[in-house]
């Protein structure tokens, strides 16, 4: 089959409108960044909370944490998107559900960020739990022996160390968030993958389109990686075995 290359396609106008294809891609990048960053913020907040609670000696909290993690880990993200978008509004009280379906601003974006954030929080929670578990037991005992309460021991001794230890695995989770945000296309968020499909159909220049979008995802992943590396370097615990850079 012949393929007609056209690298100028990005500056051409879309079939039904004034804007160029470049404009579509820039909009897509904006939504990808918005969904990913909002989801990551939510995932960090919830994930650190749930992960920490799973390490506390309390049966009820442990069961709750385990349920949280298993629920989000054993259903495909795409199905979770559909659950939040189509099923959850039906479970709300009727007038709330109606408001969500009809009046809520940017409901695709809010749903996608919420869903991706909760999904990622389960994975962050597992990393945080492993981080707390990797600390020497003496750290907690020493803190308690010094007269700190358990919350104080977590606040001043355990978490400051554990959270630094888990930065490398969290870096790959952060990069995963950008990749996973692509699934938001399925509920109509106009992010990069949505724009890629739309531009491919509209322009029939699939290869150029996908190359550009792939490059944009690469840049996102690279930026996420460098950002986390910067935080890692800034927050390194002196005296632990960690390679600089």
């Amino acid at each position, binding site marked *: *089959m012949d*393929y007609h290359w056209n690298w100028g396609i990005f500056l051409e106008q879309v079939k039904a409108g004034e804007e160029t294809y470049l404009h579509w891609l820039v909009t897509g990048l904006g939504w990808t960044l918005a969904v990913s960053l909002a989801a990551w913020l939510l995932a960090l907040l919830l994930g650190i909370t749930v992960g920490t609670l799973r390490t506390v000696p309390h049966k009820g909290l442990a069961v709750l944490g385990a349920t949280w993690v*298993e*629920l989000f*880990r*054993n*259903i*495909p*993200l*795409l*199905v*979770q998107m*559909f*659950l939040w978008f*189509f*099923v959850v509004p*039906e479970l709300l009280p*009727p007038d709330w559900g109606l408001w969500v379906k009809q009046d809520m601003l940017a409901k695709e974006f809010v749903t996608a960020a919420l869903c991706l954030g909760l999904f990622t929080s389960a994975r962050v929670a597992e990393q945080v739990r492993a981080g707390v578990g990797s600390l020497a037991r003496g750290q907690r005992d020493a803190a308690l022996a010094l007269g700190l309460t358990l919350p104080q021991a977590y606040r001043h001794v355990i978490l400051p160390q554990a959270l630094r230890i888990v930065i490398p695995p969290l870096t790959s989770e952060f*990069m995963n968030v*950008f*990749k*996973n*945000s*692509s*699934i938001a*296309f*399925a509920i109509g968020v106009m992010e990069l*993958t949505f724009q*890629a*499909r739309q531009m*491919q159909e509209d322009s029939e220049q*699939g*290869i150029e389109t*996908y190359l550009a*979008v*792939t490059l944009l*995802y*690469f840049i996102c*992943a690279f930026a996420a990686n460098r950002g986390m590396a910067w935080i890692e370097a800034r927050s390194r615990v002196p005296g632990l075995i960690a390679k600089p850079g």
Partner: protein
Amino acid sequence: MGEFDFSVWGPSLPFIRDGLLFSLRLTLIAMTGGIVIGTLLALARLSPFKPLSLAAGAYVDTMRSIPLVLVILWFFLVIPFLTGKPVGAETSAIITFTAFEAAFYCEIMRSGIQSVPRGQVWAAQALGLTPAQAMLNVVLPQALRNMLPVLLTQSIVLFQDTSLVYAIGAKDLLKAADVVGKNYNRPVEMIVLSALIYFAICFSLSLAVRQLQKRVAIVR
């Protein structure tokens, strides 16, 4: 819509079964092919021959940094150009998942191979095995056994990821639920059903893997 009507689940079952069978078939083929190709990629990555290890590394890193949905779209677009004729969404999905998962299985096998103690290789050499025989008969069996739980966990992730063939319209479990939901005008109930099936399968498999993990650990 308002109220739920789960009676749609009954008539949907034949469609759901066909969809589920495709999802499972896709998972098994991509898993088998992925582990074989992934092991070859791992050997290539560990090869002292630089061009080979660089090429394998570039392939693996590229696959791992692109969203799977985009990879699915890429293959669906490019395969017809390579073969000269259009292929169905199902065939395209099988090729895509095998190629994509190979990159992930590669990294697992690579760390598995690297976790085998060096003394094993020396002992094999001392016994007169050629490097290829040592790899095939001594190193790989141990690597595979060490990594079995991780390989299976990755395969559960793979099973969940097959739902993404939605992007090109292949008829998997989720698509079947989607179609029935539209035909009977009961999309909400069908999404719930598909979520329950995915959860039941993935949760019981991950419990099984956890049991296995306790049993296969090599006693040293």
